[in-house]
Structure formats: C-alpha cells, structure tokens
C-alpha cells in the first residue's frame, strides 16, 4: 500500500500589503505518496516559493488543509512546527546554507542537536553515516570553504538526511551549480529516491524536472499541469553523455 506523505487540499495564501491583498496561492490541490520524486516548476511569481514555504512548515496557509505524514500542520503552534521541521522535513537550499568555519561533520550534526531523542554518540554515528551516503566520508573535517560547490551541496543533502525525514524538500538545489555538478546532485537525488525517500524538488529548469517521476507546474497561484513523467531520464547516463571537453 502506498502511504500518502503530502495531502494538499485547496490551499490559499494571501498577503496583506497595506490596503492591497496579494493572492499568491489561489487554491492548490495535490497529494504526494511515499517514494515519489516530484518537481514543482513554475516561472517567477507563480507562487512556487510561497508553496515551498508552506510545504516546509515555515509558513501557514490562509485557508485550506495541509496534512504532512498524517499530521495536520495547519493547527500547530510555532514550537510544534519547529518539531515537525526537525523530524519530518529535510531542507536543501540553493545557497547550501552551511555554517561557515564549521566542519562538514558538525554541519551535518546540526539538526540532531534539536532532536532530544538523540545522544552525543548516536549523533556522531548518524552524521558520519549520512556523509557516507553522499560519498563524502573522507571530508568529515573539511570546512565549507575547503569544499567545492557540489561538495557543499552534498554536505547540505547529508544534513537533510541525517534526521531520517519523511520528505526531502529542495529549493533550487542545483541553481548555483554548473551542468555537470547539477547532474551529479540529481544522480544522488535519484539514488536516494530509489532507496525510498520522497523528494519534492522546486526548480525552474525543465531539464532538471526531466529527472523526476512527476512534475507539478504552477502558474499564477494555481496548478497548471500535474503529470507523471513517462520516461524518467537517468542522471547517471546524462552525466556519462556529457562531452569530456566540458570538463575543465
């Protein structure tokens, strides 16, 4: 049986700017089941970021219900939302958002500090395992300034994985990377997805969306298109197909 991870029902979000009301989301509906790799696409101003903030429990919808892994997020307090973010969501940002002058290992450990169930020993062990999963086992002690962009993003992915969330939420995670490194990151995402992780990936690049199993197109605060990708591109193959001359 496939478990529903996200249930979005008629979500609306309005911002009040002085006397004007800006309606960023005008009623969004979709559900995501466990193990899906969803990309949310849309041009600038389509409500992508607003939706992402709501999905990430950083913001609450004006109306509509959002059920994440069986929990109705809409009626949670600020502190409860922090807990939901900690346990159920792994964020990956465009700008990596690693702590400067802090080792990769300590960066990955960070979410576990806010999880009371984890002790010091488990924290270290899980952080090392997460870094191994993103193939950075030899770089535990490197600080962000000693890592390339792709490596930094992999540390960020490890940080998202470390608390074993039900969903990884990526916000333009390849936006700051070149094509080759983007493909490497997407290959990693596909691998994690094959291991059963649910991934929601926000992007505006169509060739990145081609790696996902499903694409939701937003336009003007509404879902314009929601389709399953018939032939998912393999990021590994795409990587192999890249001309060697690109690699300098």
């Amino acid at each position, binding site marked *: 049986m496939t478990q529903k991870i996200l249930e979005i029902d008629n979500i609306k979000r309005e911002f009040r700017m002085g006397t004007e009301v800006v309606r960023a989301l005008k009623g969004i509906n979709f559900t995501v089941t466990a193990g899906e790799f969803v990309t949310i696409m849309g041009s600038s101003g389509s409500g992508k970021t607003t939706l992402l*903030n709501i999905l*990430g429990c*950083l*913001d609450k919808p004006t109306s509509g219900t959002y059920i994440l892994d069986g929990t109705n997020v809409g009626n949670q307090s*600020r*502190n409860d939302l*922090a*807990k939901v*973010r*900690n*346990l159920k969501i792994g*964020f990956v*940002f465009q700008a990596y*958002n690693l*702590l*400067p*002058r*802090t080792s990769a290992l*300590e960066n990955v450990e*960070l*979410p576990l*500090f*806010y*999880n*009371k169930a984890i002790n010091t020993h488990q924290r270290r062990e899980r952080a090392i395992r997460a870094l191994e999963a993103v193939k950075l086992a030899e770089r535990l002690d490197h600080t962000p300034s000693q890592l390339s962009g792709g490596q930094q993003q992999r540390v960020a992915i490890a*940080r998202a994985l470390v*608390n074993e969330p039900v969903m990884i939420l990526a916000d333009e995670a390849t936006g700051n990377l070149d094509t080759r490194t983007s493909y490497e990151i997407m290959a990693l995402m596909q691998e994690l997805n094959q291991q059963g992780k649910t991934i929601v990936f926000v992007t505006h690049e169509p060739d990145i969306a081609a790696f996902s199993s499903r694409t939701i197109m937003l336009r003007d605060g509404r879902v314009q298109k929601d389709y399953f990708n018939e032939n998912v591109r393999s990021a590994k193959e795409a990587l192999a197909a890249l001309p060697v001359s690109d690699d300098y």
Partner: protein
Amino acid sequence: MSIFNLIRLALLALQRNKLRAFLTMLGIIIGVAAVIAMVAIGQGSKESIQSQLGNMGSNMITIMPASNVAGGARLEGSSVQTLTVSDVDALKKRATLLSAVSPVSSSRGQSISGALNWPTQLQGGNTDYFDIRKLTLQDGILYSESDVASAAKVCILGKTVVDNLFPSGENPIGKVIRFNKIPLQVIGTLAPKGVSSFGQDQDDIIVAPYTTIQKRVLATIYLQNILASAVSEDASEEAVNQITSILRETHRLRPTDENNFQVRTMAELIKTLSSTSSLLTVLLTAIAGISLVIGGIGIMNIMYVSVTERTREIGLRMSIGARGIDILLQFLVEAIIISITGGLIGVVLGITTSEVITLALGWPTLVSRSSIILSFMVCALTGVFFGYYPAQKASRLDPIEALRYE
C-alpha cells in the same frame, strides 16, 4: 537542547571570531579588574589605618583635664590641673568597663648620658601603662609596684633615645642617665614601634614610674592625664559614659556645671579616619562600576551585530527544527560565556594589579573576597541582562525572511 550542547555551540561560535570575542570581553575584564583593584586599594588603606591605630591601643581611652573657667576667662586644658590620683583610684574601683587604668604624668626635657644628650619626652605611668599603650620590652625588666610606690629612680628607654644616647651600641641597661638633673637608672629598653600614622616617632620616649616624675621632676600632685583601657573596642563608648559619671561625682560637679575633664577614645579616632577611606572606597568602586556597565553595553552591541550577521544561520537553524527558545538560549549562553570568561580573567587581573600596586608603589592593598564575589556576580548578571535583548531579537526572526537575508 541540553546545557552541555548549548555551551559547546556557543564556544564554537565564539571560536569563529576569537579576536572579536576577546575585544568584547575586554570591557568586562577591565571593569571587573578595576572594581577589584579599586576596592583593594580602599580596603587596604582603611586596614592600614586601623592596624596602625590599633597598634597604639585600639581600646585606649584618654582622660584629659578640660578648659575651666577662672575669673570669667576660659583656661586652656593643658594648664588646668583637675585630675588626681584619687580619680584613678575611683575609676579602678567603680568603672566596670575598664580593664586597666593608669595615671600619666609627663615632662619634656633633656636626657643626658656622659657627653651625649637628647631632647625627649619623659612619660610616667603605673605598671598597667605598658599594657594600655601596647608597649613591649625589648630587653631588661619593667618597673614594679614597689618602684611606683617609692618613686624609684628607674627608667625604660625607647629605641630613638637609645640610639642617640648610646650610639656605639653598648648595652644601656644598668647605666645611669640623667633627665634634666635627675639621675635615672636604665632597667629596660622598649621594642621599637615606628612612626605613628600622625608622623610622630613613637620610640622617642623614656618611661618611668609616674610618681618619680610627679615628685622628682615636676613636684606636683596633679596628673597630666589618665589613660584607661576599655574591656573591648566596642565597649569604648559605654565606658566613656561610665568614666564621665564617676569623674563628675568625684569632682563634685553640679548638674549645671560643665565637665572639667574630657574623655577621648581611640575607637572614635579610628572611626573618623576610616570613614574617610570608606568614602574613598565608595567613590573608586562607583567609577569602576561604571566601567563594568560600559563593558556590558559593549557586549550588547556586539551581540546585536552578531545577530544581524548571523541572520541566515538563525533562519537555517529554525528551518531544521530550532525553536525560538533554542535560538534565544544559544545567544544568551554566548553572552553569558563572554561575560563570565571576562569576569574570571578580570578577577585574576584585578588581584594581580593589586599585588603590583603594593609592590611598585608601596600602597597597602587588601583584596576582599566580597569584592571578588560581588563583581563576578554583577558581570554574570550583566551578561544575562545585556545579552537578553539581542537574543530575544534573534529568537523572534521570521525563518522565511531570515533564510533570504542578504
């Protein structure tokens, strides 16, 4: 998040900006060190005044003849003769708060030994005199009760007198010196006491039985003054009242008459002198306290800068599950660590400074435990107080805006 993790996190954050953390601390370091050193100077001078006066006998009470009216003119106290040996006897018998009483008779004059002479003060008392004045023998013996009774021609020399009359270092004991024209046999020498806090040489003295001075030098039945010792420093004040009522009785004064004697205590003098240095301590501490507050404002300033600078970090922490309280505690603990570390360094520096002041300038200093505890507590509180507002600001940030902050 556990307190251990909070401290670890805070230390990591401070480590990332060591110089800034140190400079922030510097305000607190200087503030605490200043408080401790200033209080040490104040306390030290107070302590040294007290010990010098205590050296003269902190329980000592002096009874002097007071101005009297003779034919409408007020006469100077020292020229008045009102105190007699019977007053001493009355005090000995009836004053319960006095542990010792001695009549005092004194005369300035020239002491002579062989070809050498020296102007000095001849002081006389009974056998309690040494006890009251806290004089101790260096060598020889004290005069006895029977010496006092018989007005024996014996004396005990202070160090300055010994140095001047016997400069070659021979033992003065057993020698006969003359005071004015009276020959006195030296039976002992006094241990040196040094210069008093009033600049008086306490060793420039010859002590003899008061009867000797009364009968052989001054030829009078009156006393220059009476020295007494209260049972304790605290009892001094009560003892003064007792003495006054006894002497008014023995002098047969009517209730409307003024006292024809005056009573002074050393405790009174100590209080007057220490109050000056207490005031000094308060002033110095106030100035030092201000520098502590400025140090606190420094912490607040840097914490605000730090919160602004780390807005993205705060946003990130919130997005991965930090609650407002977690962020608040993180910044608060950072501020407290800065202030407490600064406080500890300040305490060490303050104590060192006090030592250096004593060594280099010769000023007496006394580092009191209360000043250490107090200034340390104040700086810990400073950390909480001035760290709270920036920390609260951090905890109230909106994670969405914080994440997008450039």
